[in-house]
């Protein structure tokens, strides 16, 4: 299939590309401010429309830039103004639209536009409607800032900005204790990773003398390798936080407390992929240290399997999808770690489409079920909401990696890379994960849309979402189906700046078998899921539920509990201890002790000042005696000392 378009459009004839870049970047923040002004006032539908159209404008601008680059335009790099300059450090607000960032911009704005439109329907009954749009657009702005910045510190602005918006949006329903708790957890865990990121930036500054991408990458070969690997490790720690890699992964599942469009946009399509974006963006650093890359790939494979196992048993529809996101992020890191950067980016793009679609579908289900999340209480919903069922089915098939859906192309490439670099353990892990992925995707689909209508027992009357919401989701569905077909165009486009990954000669011969094997396990997974749910409700019987492994998985390997016991509680107790025992009882008490000492000296000696002359006279004599003694000691000090020395020796 070849969609080679011979329309050579030179977009810069119509409009200045830097203007396009500014429009793409700043129209979301304009929307956010407009919505923010009405933040505390009652819902206005107009706000949602204005904000969505501004995001759409941003999408159009991004698309313009994309076309400009696609048809051979030069990379757009603008420097808006100086930000921080002190000593030798000089950081501007600089933005770049090259092949990588424009791809990200396109994905971000496209998914954002859809999520914004969807949210008009989803949030229609929420009293924080305007506030929601303000936060959501602010997020888009931060994300655009992140991907468009031309230096590491600018990236860090966006990085923290998305963290802030994520905090605001997870805790959007701030009256819920669990939501605000999850928001804080996400923010703080990200901050821990940001610490690593900052250290990486410090290292880059002190060794390269600059933070601009192009200048850093130009000098990268003149820096000792151990420094480079330290930089790579610290930057990756930053990426681990944002992309929720083990051991900083727990926040992502808890982040599902936020409204579902937020989960779709932030915690599936865009923000969590920022870590992958960082690895791709800094590929020239990571490429120099394959050991670090191998570590990244191994961790990615581990997370892929680890998250997939947790997704197997969870009964919360959103959490299952969240674990699946984790798992897919693991795939991307495998590709990134093994040096196949364009494949990582490709999987990032396709994953954004079908995962956002999956979340939005889950949002519809949630709405229909009156915010019920437990899939055991659903079932047979296809009768009431056929559109949603269809969309979710598409997304699930894409996620499972069935030809010709988008997920097939990107995921299969990752497996091939793992095989090609002779990392058979990684390949095996990913292969197994592919089967698990197919299984849990269809487990959800089966439990939610097929089988008996269990919801009736709970007195719930589901209804289909607004039509425009479904229409808004349609582009995503289309892309989830067809995106993989543009693989060659994608390669040509992004490898203009990303390194090309060359498969070895031998792999072409067995590539057919590999595809077969992978597809086989995916199909097997789907089959098991379908069959097991056709005949009885759920695969897991009660006896199985008392199994140790089931419990382990159901409790997320007890990791949240361990963190609570090992970090949260000791931190709180240590803080209390520091305050009550150390600060008040040692540090402050020492100071007060000195003061009390002086005070008690006064209290004890004030008896002297009784006004009685004879006592005063006696004290005077004591004073004279003391002075005399000291006078003698002073005048005979030398002889006394020699005497003492004689005695001691």
């Amino acid at each position, binding site marked *: 299939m070849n969609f080679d378009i011979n329309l050579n459009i030179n977009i810069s004839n119509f409009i200045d590309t830097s203007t396009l870049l500014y429009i793409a970047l700043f129209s979301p923040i304009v929307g956010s401010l407009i919505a923010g002004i009405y933040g505390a006032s009652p819902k206005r539908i107009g706000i949602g429309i204005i904000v969505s159209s501004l995001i759409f404008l941003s999408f159009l601008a991004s698309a313009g830039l994309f076309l400009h680059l696609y048809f051979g335009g030069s990379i757009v790099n603008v420097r808006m103004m100086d930000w921080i300059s002190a000593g030798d450090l000089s950081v501007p607000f600089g933005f770049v639209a090259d092949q990588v960032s424009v791809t990200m911009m396109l994905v971000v704005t496209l998914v954002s536009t859809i999520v914004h439109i969807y949210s008009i329907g989803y949030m229609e009954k929420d009293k924080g409607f305007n506030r929601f749009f303000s936060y959501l657009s602010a997020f888009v702005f931060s994300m655009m800032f992140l991907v468009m910045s031309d230096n590491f510190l600018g990236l860090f602005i966006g990085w923290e900005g998305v963290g802030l918006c994520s905090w605001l949006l997870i805790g959007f329903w701030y009256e819920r204790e669990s939501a605000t708790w999850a928001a804080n957890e996400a923010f703080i865990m990200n901050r821990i990773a940001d610490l690593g990121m900052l250290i990486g930036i410090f290292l880059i500054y002190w060794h390269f003398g600059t933070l601009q991408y192009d200048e850093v990458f130009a000098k990268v070969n003149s820096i000792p390798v151990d420094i480079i690997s330290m930089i790579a490790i610290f930057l990756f720690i930053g990426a681990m936080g944002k992309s929720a890699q083990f051991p900083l992964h727990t926040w992502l599942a808890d982040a599902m407390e936020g409204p579902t469009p937020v989960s779709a946009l932030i915690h599936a399509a865009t923000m969590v992929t920022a870590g992958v974006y960082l690895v791709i963006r800094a590929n020239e650093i990571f490429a120099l240290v394959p050991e670090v890359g191998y570590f990244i790939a191994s961790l990615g494979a581990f997370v892929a399997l680890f998250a997939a196992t947790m997704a197997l048993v969870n009964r919360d529809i959103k959490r299952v999808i969240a674990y699946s996101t984790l798992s897919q992020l693991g795939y991307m890191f495998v590709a990134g770690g093994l040096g196949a950067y364009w494949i990582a980016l490709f999987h990032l793009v396709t994953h954004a489409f079908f995962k956002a679609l999956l979340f939005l579908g889950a949002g519809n289900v949630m709405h229909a079920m009156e915010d019920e999340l437990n899939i055991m209480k659903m079932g047979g919903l296809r009768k009431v909401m056929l559109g949603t069922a269809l969309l979710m089915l598409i997304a699930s098939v894409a996620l499972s990696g069935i030809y010709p859906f988008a997920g097939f192309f990107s995921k299969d490439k990752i497996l091939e890379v793992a095989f090609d670099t002779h990392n058979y353990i990684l390949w095996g892990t990913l292969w197994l994960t592919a089967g698990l992925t197919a299984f849990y995707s269809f487990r959800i689909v089966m439990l939610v849309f097929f089988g008996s209508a269990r919801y009736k027992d709970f007195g719930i009357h589901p209804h289909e979402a607004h039509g425009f919401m479904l229409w808004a989701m349609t582009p995503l569905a289309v892309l989830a189906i067809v995106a993989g077909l543009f693989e060659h165009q994608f390669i040509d486009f992004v490898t203009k700046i990303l390194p090309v990954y060359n498969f070895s000669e031998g792999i072409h011969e067995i590539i057919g078998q590999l595809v077969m094997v992978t597809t086989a396990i995916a199909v097997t997974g789907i089959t098991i899921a379908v069959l097991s749910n056709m005949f009885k409700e759920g695969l897991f019987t009660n006896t199985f539920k008392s199994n140790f492994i089931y419990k382990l998985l159901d409790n997320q390997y007890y990791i949240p509990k361990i963190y609570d016991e090992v970090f949260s509680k000791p931190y709180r107790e240590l803080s209390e201890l520091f305050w009550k025992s150390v600060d008040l009882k040692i540090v402050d008490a020492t100071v007060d002790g000195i003061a009390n000492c002086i005070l008690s000296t006064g209290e004890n000696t004030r008896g002297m*000042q*009784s*006004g*009685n*002359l*004879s006592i005063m*006279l*006696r004290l005077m*004599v004591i004073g004279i005696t003391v002075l005399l003694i000291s006078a003698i000691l002073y005048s005979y000090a030398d002889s006394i000392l020699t005497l003492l020395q004689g005695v001691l020796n």
Partner: protein
Amino acid sequence: MNLSISLEHYLLLSSILFFIGLYGVIVRKNLLMLFFATEIMLNAVNIGLVAISNYYGDLTGQMFAFFIIAIAASEVAIGLGLLVIWFKRHNTVDLDSLQSMKG
């Protein structure tokens, strides 16, 4: 055996007298006795000063003693005046009755 009287003899005498006076100041409670004891102490110092003056051939010591006598005389004049007033008001010259300074 050296029978001549040296400076040390005088100084020793001066010290002994001074401490007789000091003893009086501390032990006695009668204000009049305190005055007497003070006189003794002043005179003890005078002996020391004059003796040093003699043994070193310097007049400064005698000058000091001279001024000390002047001060002693003034002190007695004023002190006794105060004492008389005190006695008139309180009908006692006991030291422990002087408690008006107690805070």
